[in-house]
């Protein structure tokens, strides 16, 4: 168990976990607030 925890905190594993969480957060952000890239979100008519 101690060795598994050591493995799970090694830099490549932590980096992979971080990337998965970040990708998930960005995908969910685009699911619930789609269209942020159009530049018309805060002002409908520029």
């Amino acid at each position: 168990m101690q060795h598994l925890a050591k493995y799970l905190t090694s830099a490549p594993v932590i980096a992979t976990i971080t990337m998965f969480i970040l990708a998930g957060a960005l995908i969910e952000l685009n699911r619930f607030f789609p269209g942020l890239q159009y530049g018309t979100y805060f002002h409908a008519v520029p």
Partner: protein
Amino acid sequence: MRKLLIRLLVTIAVIIIGFGVVPPAQAASGILTPCSESSAFQQRKSSAPDNYYFNKPYEAYSAFEVCGEDGLPHLPITLGTAVDVAIPFVLFHYVAGFIGWSARSYLIAANKSSNPEEKEIFIDLPLMIASIIQGLLWPLLALKELTTGELTAKANEVYVSPR
């Protein structure tokens, strides 16, 4: 003499590049038309693939944006739309600083510990979480470190190669 010549050439190059090569601004407000009236834009719209990821943006562009002669939407910056630029600008710099500051504070704390190399290979999770929380406050901490002189190295600590 040689230095003076180089400086002169650089000045001439700057003048030529700065004023000569750059074409006059195309996106002057007179040239921009609403996208729904721009024929070049309509052509682009009709030749684009017919799915959500193209239709939605093209609908938004034709409803709200102004297009140049190239048929592409342009965003003239006014005081009203400045907020639309400022929010992503601030967010980007905050996130970039957050990432950098978290890593910096982690490395500084690791270097102070007894086994800095090991902490770079096997991440110390409590230290990592503390660094991330510290990174959230980075604008304040950067200001504090700048005033106390921790952020920058002293001039005599910076190595200058012999010349």
